[in-house]
């Protein structure tokens, strides 16, 4: 299963990612990608959806309890668990 990394909040980027991500693929939002989570309610309810904790706190955002805040250590673990890794930007 694929690990999708989303590093921007751009409607085109998000659209492409969501169009091809399967139900068992995991999504990790990093950098400005975390803003997408703050503004898309549907995303927050998707299983296997994560956000990098550092990038959330940097931007002063509050995590919805449904979203798993990810340490770098957990991000590394996910990238071992899934294959391949596709970056959307």
């Amino acid at each position: 299963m694929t690990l999708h990394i989303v590093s921007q909040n751009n409607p085109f980027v998000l659209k492409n990612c969501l169009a091809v991500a399967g139900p068992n693929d995991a999504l990790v939002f990093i950098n400005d990608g975390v803003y997408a989570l703050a503004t898309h309610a549907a995303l927050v309810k998707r299983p296997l959806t994560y956000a990098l904790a550092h990038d959330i706190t940097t931007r002063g955002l509050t995590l919805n309890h449904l979203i798993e805040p990810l340490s770098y250590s957990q991000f590394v673990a996910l990238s071992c668990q899934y294959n391949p890794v596709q970056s959307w930007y």
Partner: protein
Amino acid sequence: MLFTLVIHAAPHSLLGSTAYNAYQFAQCLLQEGHRIHRLFFYGEGVHNLNAQAITPQGEFDLPAAWQALIEQYQLDSVVCIAAALRRGVLDDNEQKRHQTPQRALANNLLTGSELSGLGQLIDATAHSDRTITFA
């Protein structure tokens, strides 16, 4: 597990500051006992190893941090030669090759990395368990 990281973002880009994410990801995976087959700096990412970049005091010096990480773990760090030349990041060879009496150039590639071709990227994907792009 064996990783290759491809870094497209510069420390100061118009788009994307994932250069910081890439550095912290690399640092973490090494601390966890995973290994890096190669760092490949491509596109604007070549500026991560620009020795001329002066970071203001009190700010995190990303080029210096990359250099220290590369040295500490003896990482294979390749900067795409074509991308680097276009953006003014030169090693000793390229500095000598392009220098003219009218044009004084510097070797401004941080030590520990080398300029090389795209074959190094393709080779790295074939020999790594994971390839991750940061842009």
